[in-house]
């Protein structure tokens, strides 16, 4: 890329007020290039992403410098515990040439920050980070240009440090003194000079800025906020999907201590009280007297895969590139997972404050703008009268109860104008009410030629949508319960290349013939939406399990077999790195009795971070209990902003995926969800924690950011399943890999 750089002339900047619009003639070409693969080592192909600048091009949407010296960074993305505040500040400080502590960051707020949609899909650094990187670099250029005028010195003789421009004679121009009114209210240029190989703050393991408050009892979460006059709300949830509230004894509850209001609107039922435990006791009394009509009909949990495959489907051809070949051997297999809960440790919470004709909601939603639109529609308010402000909650791992709790708080707040209402769900409400990661089935047939290479791959998946988030009011449980009920919008799949059920359904491997079909299932008897990694969890579990089955059929080593089918040098690098660091070729390690080794790889969405994982699993002969003993991951996340942040994300993905893989399963009877707490929905505890987890980053300095927050989930699941197969000699294809299933598989009678 050359010759397209738009230079902001000093004179135009000085001309000063009003917006200065720069040319964007090169944008189309830039976008076209983004679709291609950046090449390793090609710095010129790097850093051309403009991220969210495409949606919010003005520099002062991202960076503001005030005359009092405050420098503020704005992002439409939210801190979810992934460390995004710290990473974005690192990028801004690097490009502005300030210290980290000279900046403050404002995150997702419909009144203050750009609309960057949802904080999801491992997009935050790619989208917001890229925007902030360019915006910050151009703000610095503008400040240098202004200082050049004042100093009467060419810009190229000036340098910056510590939020000031320094002239050759030592004169110092603080950023705050250089900024005039509208100086930063200009659109970003499509490219600016960046020096990706000279980082001071990026690429460093800077400690997270949010951790000190979290470990000392600071106000760190929406759960901890106490605006003046705050009161407490609780809701009573229907016992099953779509249940209608027939009757309620609200009078006896209204006289309970502290109770300010019982709120009933259709089947929406809640209570507001002065103190939190008073609200809980009132909620319990309401629940005890509520009579419901239940109509839900849930599928047979014992035969979920059959149920899914029997549903009416809309068939989407994801890939159709089949050619005839000469097969020596054909294998087929079916892999499944049940519904999986997000299972946040902190039940969803929000604060609503209705004052005058305006509503403010503090929420841990992943998308404040879409939520704002949904709440406005639900309450019949103008959008500009509703403000949603992100405040941290417990980790969400996708679309959990956050938005629903925000809607509940909004309905309760409207009933007690002037009083901020803090609403938190109870544990059983979170477990039973959240939208789960959909149950899925993946079926694959593949053929090997006489030389043991895959010559045909035919793959099909069955899944509901993984996207029932707001925008529309009908996405909110409260809105569907009101007397004037909103309908749940018709489900839609997320189109490729990101996909939802079909995310990562196209193997990155090179096969001469391949087909992928997505049987999209509109019928959703169990509430579902986005769970971290979406369909990539199942698809990588299935593809990478089957790669091992094919390798065994070909008599090949699983790592070598993968490399034989891969061209992408970055994919090959993470695979060889993980294998080497693990000691894959050390056969002695493999022979520990009752232990097995497993390997898996994926590039998240085939366009974000690359991740390969090798692991060792021990299986207890008597109980069938599998325990992940050790995992070694290699990750290529492109340009890394905070290496420790990347390691933290991959470690977390491995442990969370291990929990999904070995333990987790949403249970239900004909009407009701029955996994409603941590006893009925067990997840990993410390007794299941591995002895060691290593994460190795392959540095790609100067290349585009590749989101890594979800990259480890699929590979971890498959690596564990492959290790269980190696340890037991039996292939298990249905998640979770429970002790009962492992024991049954080991007994000859249960063999298929």
């Amino acid at each position, binding site marked *: 890329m050359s010759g397209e750089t738009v230079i902001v002339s000093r004179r135009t900047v000085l001309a000063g007020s009003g917006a200065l619009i720069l040319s964007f003639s090169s944008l189309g070409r830039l976008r076209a290039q983004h679709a291609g693969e950046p090449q390793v080592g090609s710095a010129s192909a790097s850093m051309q992403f403009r991220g969210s600048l495409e949606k919010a091009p003005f520099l002062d949407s991202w960076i503001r410098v005030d005359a009092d010296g405050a420098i503020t960074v704005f992002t439409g993305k939210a801190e979810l*515990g992934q460390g995004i505040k710290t990473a974005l500040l690192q990028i801004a400080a690097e490009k502005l040439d300030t210290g980290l502590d000279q900046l403050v960051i404002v995150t997702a707020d419909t009144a203050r920050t750009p609309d960057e949609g949802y904080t999801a899909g491992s997009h935050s650094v790619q989208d917001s980070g890229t925007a902030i990187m360019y915006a910050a670099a151009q703000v610095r250029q503008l400040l240098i240009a202004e200082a050049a005028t004042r100093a009467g010195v060419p810009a190229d003789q000036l340098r910056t440090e510590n939020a000031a421009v320094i002239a050759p004679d030592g004169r110092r121009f603080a950023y705050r003194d250089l900024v005039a009114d509208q100086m930063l209210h200009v659109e970003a240029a499509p490219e600016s000079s960046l020096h990706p190989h000279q980082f001071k703050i990026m690429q460093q393991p800077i400690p997270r800025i949010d951790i000190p408050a979290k*470990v000392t009892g600071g106000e760190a979460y929406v759960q901890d906020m106490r605006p003046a006059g705050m009161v407490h709300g609780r809701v009573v949830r229907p016992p099953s999907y779509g249940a209608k509230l027939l009757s309620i004894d609200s009078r006896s509850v209204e006289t309970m201590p502290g109770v300010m209001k019982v709120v009933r609107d259709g089947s929406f039922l809640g209570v507001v009280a002065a103190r939190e435990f008073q609200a809980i006791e009132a909620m319990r009394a309401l629940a005890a007297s509520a009579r419901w009509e239940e109509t839900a009909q849930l599928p047979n949990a014992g035969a979920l895969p059959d149920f899914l495959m029997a549903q009416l489907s809309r068939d989407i051809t994801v890939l159709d590139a089949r050619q005839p070949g000469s097969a020596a051997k054909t294998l087929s297999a079916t892999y499944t997972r049940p519904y999986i809960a997000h299972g946040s*440790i902190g039940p969803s919470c929000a604060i609503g404050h209705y004052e005058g004709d305006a509503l403010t909601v503090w929420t841990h939603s992943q998308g404040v703008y879409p939520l704002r639109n949904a709440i406005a529609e639900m309450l019949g308010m103008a959008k500009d009268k509703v403000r949603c402000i992100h405040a941290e909650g417990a980790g969400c791992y996708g679309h959990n109860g956050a938005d629903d709790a925000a809607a509940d708080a909004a309905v309760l707040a409207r009933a007690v104008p002037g009083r901020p209402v803090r609403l938190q769900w109870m*544990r059983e409400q979170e477990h039973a009410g959240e939208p789960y990661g959909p149950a899925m089935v993946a079926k694959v047939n593949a053929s090997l030629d006489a030389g043991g290479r895959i010559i045909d791959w035919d793959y099909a998946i069955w899944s509901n949508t993984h996207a029932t988030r707001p925008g529309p009011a009908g996405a909110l449980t409260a809105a569907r319960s009101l007397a004037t009920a909103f309908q749940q919008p018709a489900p839609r799949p997320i189109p490729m290349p990101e996909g939802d059920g079909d995310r990562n359904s196209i193997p990155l491997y090179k096969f001469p013939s391949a087909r992928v079909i997505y049987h999209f299932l509109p019928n959703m008897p169990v509430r579902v939406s986005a769970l971290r990694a979406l369909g990539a969890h199942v698809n990588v579990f299935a593809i990478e399990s089957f790669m091992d089955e094919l390798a065994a059929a070909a008599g090949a080593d699983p790592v070598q077999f993968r490399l034989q089918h891969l061209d992408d040098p970055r994919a090959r690098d993470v695979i060889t790195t993980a294998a080497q660091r693990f000691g894959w070729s050390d056969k002695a390690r493999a022979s520990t009795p009752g232990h097995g080794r497993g390997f898996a790889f994926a590039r998240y969405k085939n366009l974000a971070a690359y991740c390969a994982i090798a692991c060792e699993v021990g299986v207890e002969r008597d109980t069938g209990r599998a325990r992940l003993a050790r995992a070694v991951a290699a990750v290529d996340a492109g340009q890394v902003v905070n290496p420790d942040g990347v390691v933290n994300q991959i470690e*977390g993905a491995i442990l969370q995926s291990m929990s999904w893989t070995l333990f987790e399963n949403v249970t239900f009877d004909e009407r009701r969800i029955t996994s409603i707490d941590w006893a009925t929905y067990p997840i990993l505890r410390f007794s299941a924690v591995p002895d060691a987890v290593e994460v190795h980053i392959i540095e790609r300095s100067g290349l585009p950011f590749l989101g890594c927050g979800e990259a480890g989930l699929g590979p971890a699941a498959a690596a564990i399943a492959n290790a269980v197969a190696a340890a037991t000699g039996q292939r298990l294809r249905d998640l979770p890999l429970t002790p009962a299933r492992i024991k049954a598989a080991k007994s000859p009678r249960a063999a298929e």
Partner: protein
Amino acid sequence: MKLNVNGRQHDIESDPRTPLLYVLRDELNLNAAKFGCGLGQCGACTVLVDGEAVFSCLTPVSLLADKEITTLEGLGTLATPAPIQRAFIEAQAAQCGYCIPGMMMRAQALLQKQPHAGDAEIRAWLEPNLCRCGTHMRILRAVHRARAGDRT
């Protein structure tokens, strides 16, 4: 009634049946102990009562009249963090961090009794506490780091 929290006596207005968690959060404006399940299944609400780790979500304040209650706020502050707090910062042992105060209080109870607890003891001791982000490796590193012999 009166409650001794972090070395100070507090007059409590709440009904004595109220679980300690709500008194700490709602009446004393303390943030660290978190509501997680209300069932004693996750440990997010863990505090110390006379040095023992207890689930504050299950313990009515009526049982605590003569007890010494310690929350995370009572161990140290942002300016002068306690060893366990310093260790968690140094190990960057948090993702969302919601479970972490409970983890720290349970670990604190162990280290007060057994300042040199080994890895197996630490793992077994932390079994009641859940983390959903998968930060366990860092939590273990932080607790190791906080042990008396390992303090820097």
